[in-house]
């Protein structure tokens, strides 16, 4: 239905577009410059997802593609099922996911389900690694994933269609147009699969794992004047899934539907007083599990202002307000309602070879004493002689995670007096570049205290307590390089992370955890991408390695998941004709047919195939000045 509506919309767009071209060319949208987040996080590492690879893999959810691009672990409860991120030795609740500046982690569970974040829905994906609560608020301990839509559209029309193993289909359609001072872009996507893959090492097929996911992203920009604009961003995602049961279960009937509405209105103006941005919006997250509706509704207001002080000191101040309504049956007859407000300020200054950043944030949560959250970072250009550059960096931060609505309001279990989890994080690193080869290395440490755990009381009832202390130490290394020889070009990246994430203290009943690695937190993680192009041909090899993961708190080897290496391979060919661009790809996932698990008892498919077709209409070249 959604897709059919989208088709109509597309045809309308194409018509409009054709007509718009008659009297005007593609209008340059209003340009409003703000400093990117990285600037205020000098001293840490931010990765931008390669846009070509993102487009090539846009049919997959973020949990699937980030694990090939970065040394990050995802615990997926089956193929296409819920997916929780683990970055820098933390749990899925310790990564903040933000969409156009709005935190979209589930406020009931505290974590984001990456399986309902479809890559195709975003124009840009950035990952900030490490502590960043001073900029991104609650949950930014292991890192932050920054998603944005409504970037300047690159193509008036884009279409992509995939057919894959196990009855998998994917369709996406994007269109954008510009009439006078209004820019509109629409993105529609839909993916579905029977997902009845053969269970590795068995004659059976996976039962009851079919899924359908679809969504729409709509952006409107009104240029009110050359320096003022209004933006509307709307994103609706719908997922309907049979819950893939544990291996051996052939009778499960559990189903889950997710409905997520996210809407924001943003007014921006850029003048001699600085860049002012005012946003208002709502987030409505619904999970319907076996027919039971659980909903968290939020009203959101965000104001920020960026200004350059004398002596070229950049200043950014902001305030964020979340009005949260917990409509969960588990919270009892009375719906909890609370307001959370964050106030923040950041300063950034370049001094010749040195870049300094200082941020502070103070959250206000009812009946919770949230700490002041500073971030201090510095970068220094040790060598900047082209083609040789070497930068060293360091940062330290205090971070926090607010108790979730479940932690606070679960009937007969939640505690209103829970305190937030807090952490101190520190990191040193270097970025080194010679010609087209770069090397990035970081060593990090973090101590998380007051970690909230649900612990059984003597009557068997589980309740949350601020109890655990976790110490994390590790290092990451990444190398990338690109070469070309005539028509042939090749690029490669290689990532590795070593992570020790150890329980230092915990509840008396959990003493067997002390000194042990956190569950689902591999010590070794690695990934690599090799991409090569010859004329209009392309071939890409994706590789990931994941070490042993303990699934049981005392690190019993009986319950550990074995290490595995996964390889995906894609080969493509493209044709261009005037402004039309056509691409055809064949993709083999799990080329080596490796049996592996990302969560205990949940099967993942062996070798499988996808065929992909893409069409892009390029923008009309600009008129000469």
């Amino acid at each position: 239905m959604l897709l059919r509506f989208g088709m109509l919309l597309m045809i309308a767009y194409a018509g409009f577009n054709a007509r718009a071209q008659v009297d005007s060319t593609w209008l340059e949208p209003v340009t409003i410059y703000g400093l990117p987040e990285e600037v205020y996080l000098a001293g840490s590492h931010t990765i931008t997802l390669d846009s070509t690879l993102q487009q090539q893999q846009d049919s997959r959810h973020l949990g699937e593609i980030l694990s090939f691009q970065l040394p990050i672990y995802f615990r997926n409860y089956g193929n296409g099922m819920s997916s929780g991120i683990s970055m820098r030795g933390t749990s899925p609740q310790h990564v903040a996911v933000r969409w156009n500046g709005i935190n979209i982690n589930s406020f009931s569970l505290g974590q984001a389900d990456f399986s309902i974040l479809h890559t195709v829905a975003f124009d840009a994906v950035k990952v900030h690694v490490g502590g960043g609560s001073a900029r991104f608020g609650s949950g930014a301990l292991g890192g932050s994933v920054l998603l944005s839509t409504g970037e300047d559209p690159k193509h008036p029309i884009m279409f992509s269609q995939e057919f894959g193993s196990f009855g998998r289909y994917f369709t996406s359609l994007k269109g954008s147009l510009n009439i006078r001072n209004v820019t509109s872009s629409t993105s529609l996507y839909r993916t579905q699969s029977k997902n009845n893959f053969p269970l590795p090492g068995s004659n059976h097929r996976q039962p009851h794992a079919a899924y359908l996911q679809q969504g729409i992203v709509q952006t409107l920009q009104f240029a009110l004047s050359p320096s003022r604009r209004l933006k509307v961003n709307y994103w609706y995602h719908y997922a309907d899934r049979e819950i893939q049961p544990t291996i051996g279960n052939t009778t499960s009937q559990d189903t889950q539907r997710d409905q997520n509405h996210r809407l924001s209105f943003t007014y921006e103006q850029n003048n001699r007083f600085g860049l002012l941005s005012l946003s208002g919006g709502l987030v409505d997250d619904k999970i319907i599990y076996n027919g039971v509706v659980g909903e968290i509704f939020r009203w959101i207001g965000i104001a920020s202002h960026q200004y350059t002080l004398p002596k070229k000191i950049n200043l950014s101040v902001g305030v964020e307000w979340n009005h949260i309504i917990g409509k969960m049956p588990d919270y009892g007859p009375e719906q909890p309602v609370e307001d959370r407000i964050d106030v923040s300020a950041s300063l950034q200054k370049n001094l010749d070879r040195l870049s300094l950043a200082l941020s502070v944030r103070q959250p206000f949560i009812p009946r919770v004493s949230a700490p002041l959250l500073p971030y201090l970072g510095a970068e220094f250009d040790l060598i900047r002689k082209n083609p040789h550059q070497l930068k060293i960096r360091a940062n330290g931060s205090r971070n926090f995670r607010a108790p979730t609505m479940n932690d606070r309001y679960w009937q007969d279990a939640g505690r209103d007096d829970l305190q937030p989890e807090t952490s101190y994080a520190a990191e040193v690193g270097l970025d080194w570049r010679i010609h087209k080869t770069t090397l990035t290395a970081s060593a990090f440490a973090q101590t998380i205290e007051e970690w909230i755990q649900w612990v059984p009381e003597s009557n068997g009832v589980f309740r949350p307590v601020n109890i655990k202390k976790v110490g994390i130490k590790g290092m990451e290394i990444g190398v990338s390089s690109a070469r070309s020889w005539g028509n042939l070009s090749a690029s490669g990246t290689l990532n590795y992370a070593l992570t020790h994430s150890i329980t230092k203290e915990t509840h008396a009943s959990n003493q067997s955890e002390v000194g042990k690695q956190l569950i689902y937190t591999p010590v070794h993680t690695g990934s690599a991408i090799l991409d090569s192009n010859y004329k209009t041909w392309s071939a890409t090899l994706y590789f990931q390695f994941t070490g042993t993961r303990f699934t049981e708190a005392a690190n019993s080897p009986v319950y550990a998941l074995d290490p595995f290496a996964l390889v995906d391979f894609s080969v493509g060919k493209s044709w261009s004709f005037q402004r039309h661009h056509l691409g055809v790809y064949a993709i083999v996932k799990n080329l080596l047919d490796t049996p592996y698990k990302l969560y205990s008892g949940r099967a993942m498919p062996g070798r499988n195939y996808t065929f992909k077709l893409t069409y892009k209409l390029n923008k009309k070249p600009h008129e000469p000045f």
Partner: protein
Amino acid sequence: MNHSKKFYTRQPIILTSASFVRVLILILSTALMLMGCHGDEPLPKGKYEHGIIVINEGNFGAANGSVTFYSAPSGDVEQNIFRNDAGDFAGEVVQSLTLDGDIGYMVINGDNKIEIVNHNTFKSLGTLSDELLDKPKYIQIMGRQAYVSVLGPYEEGGYSLVDSYVLVFDLDTKEVVKKIETDEGTENLLLAGQYLFASNYNYGGSNTVAIIDIATNTLEDQLEVGSGPAGLVADVNGDIWVLCEGDFGGANGTLVRINPNTLQVEKTIDLHVNPYTDLAITPDGENLVYTAEGSVFMISISAETAPDEPLFIAGNVVNTYALDINPENGDIWIGDAVNFASVGSVFIYDAEGVFKTSFTAGINPRQFTFK
């Protein structure tokens, strides 16, 4: 010197045909004798013939329910001795094991099936499953019929049980032959004489014991007892005892005695605690044992009131998840689920409550089988 000389001068043995026959007879008779010995002491039936089987539920949603073997008296422990045909473990929430001859029936609550094994080898012999087998708990075997307590479905859009029953399987055809409706939350089963007793626990929400006539496979009666009836044992006189958990936080658990002939409640003892669901009986059938919040209580079957003092306090046990008594020696066994997240432990105390030993089991140890 002399001795060695004598040895040295000894005649070498040369087998004549007559002596060869004699030796042959000797060998054959020895062999026959040895074979005779085997007849008296049969060959071991398998690695797990004698010992204690621990059933571990595993983590919910992780399909890592497992079986641990404890070899008495050596104390050797082997983890995860049974794997289902697709997985690395026995299944999703392994609930209970019931033996019938050399065959073991393992109820897999989360997978809605019953794994049939040779319990001496833990080799699979097949499974029982049916659409009606929805959250099974315990199984009892009588002849070629199997009786399974089944929690049944939840209410639409909730987690309240709405249709529990006892399901009867024909073990030859592996088909369901009867569904016997009971009150909600049917759990423990006990066969006594011509009746099957089934406790309707429902986390304290039900308060009856169903009595099923196994000659006709019909419900004879549902006797009202305290809230949350769970553990069932028969004492030395053949009387049936039911341990009722009581109301949540109400400290009003009870022990109820049922006469298996009149099918009437004969005695109710207030325990003044909320006991854990498991009820054990001493090898002589004279004393009942139950636990509450880490204390282990023993009560004589002739007592009129509950003991004021526990037999002992299981100080090392964090969360009692299984209780039973070894019928061989009266040792009291406690399964400790610890935090329900890491591997559990088993603590063994002697009949007086003196700690003997402990060992690591699987995740959430729930039941012991002594054999």
